[in-house]
């Protein structure tokens, strides 16, 4: 992977945003199927995907792996989606995503400041 021209953190942050986006998709899928009999809740392998996002390797671009979400027991209809838990995860994930966009924005601002020479 070539060395980024301006700031290596840009790539990492962008990939971290990707990981959050994918997790948002997975959580939305869980919530869409909250009443589907037999549906098994899913989750992304968040920790390893985030750690990988900031590595300067080809491996970093690989999308996050999916795992089964076993944090809630199955209901009588075999469904394992816990509404409250998934909503909490969704809110947390969206908040982290927004935080990352702010950080990325600030870093771009810093680079711009350097380009402008502080004027």
């Amino acid at each position: 992977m070539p060395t980024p021209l301006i700031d290596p953190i840009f790539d990492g942050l962008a990939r971290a945003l990707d990981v959050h986006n994918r997790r948002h998709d997975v959580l939305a899928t869980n919530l869409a199927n909250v009443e589907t009999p037999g549906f098994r809740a899913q989750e992304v392998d968040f920790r390893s995907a985030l750690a990988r996002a900031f590595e300067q390797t080809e491996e970093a671009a690989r999308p996050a792996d999916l795992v089964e979400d076993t944090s809630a027991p199955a209901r009588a209809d075999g469904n394992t989606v816990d509404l409250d838990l998934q909503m909490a995860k969704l809110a947390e994930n969206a908040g982290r995503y927004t935080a990352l966009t702010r950080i990325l924005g600030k870093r771009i601002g810093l680079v711009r400041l350097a380009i402008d020479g502080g004027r």
Partner: protein
Amino acid sequence: MDLLNPTFAIAASALRAERMRLDVIASNLANASTTRTEAGGPYRRRHVIFETESMGSDFADTIAALGGTADTQRGVEVTAVVDDPTPPRMVFDPGHPDANPEGYVAYPNVNPVLEMVDLMAATRAYEANVQVVNATKRMAESALSISG
């Protein structure tokens, strides 16, 4: 429609399915005492069958498979609306025009309490998916405002 964000399509499929479920519940409650139908006999309670639905187009599926992200975008759809097979509620009312020779009237197998519980569950599921839409919107907005 899922050009910008497939999550909208997932949440929309759930909103559609839950709304349909609400329609069926409303129909069950409205007909809780209906003794005559086009098919003959009392109204029969109906319920919806939910199934997961694969979202993307062929193109999106192919791209997803290449990227190893296959099978994440799954919405939900109502695949059938089926009759509840439980027998009708028999009420002794000899004066009723639809009473059988023994004086019993066949009323729909609708249990209003059950329907109300179902109604609440459907409403909550609907609200949850509205929150998903809102969260998706906020995320898209914050991504669009990255500029420093």
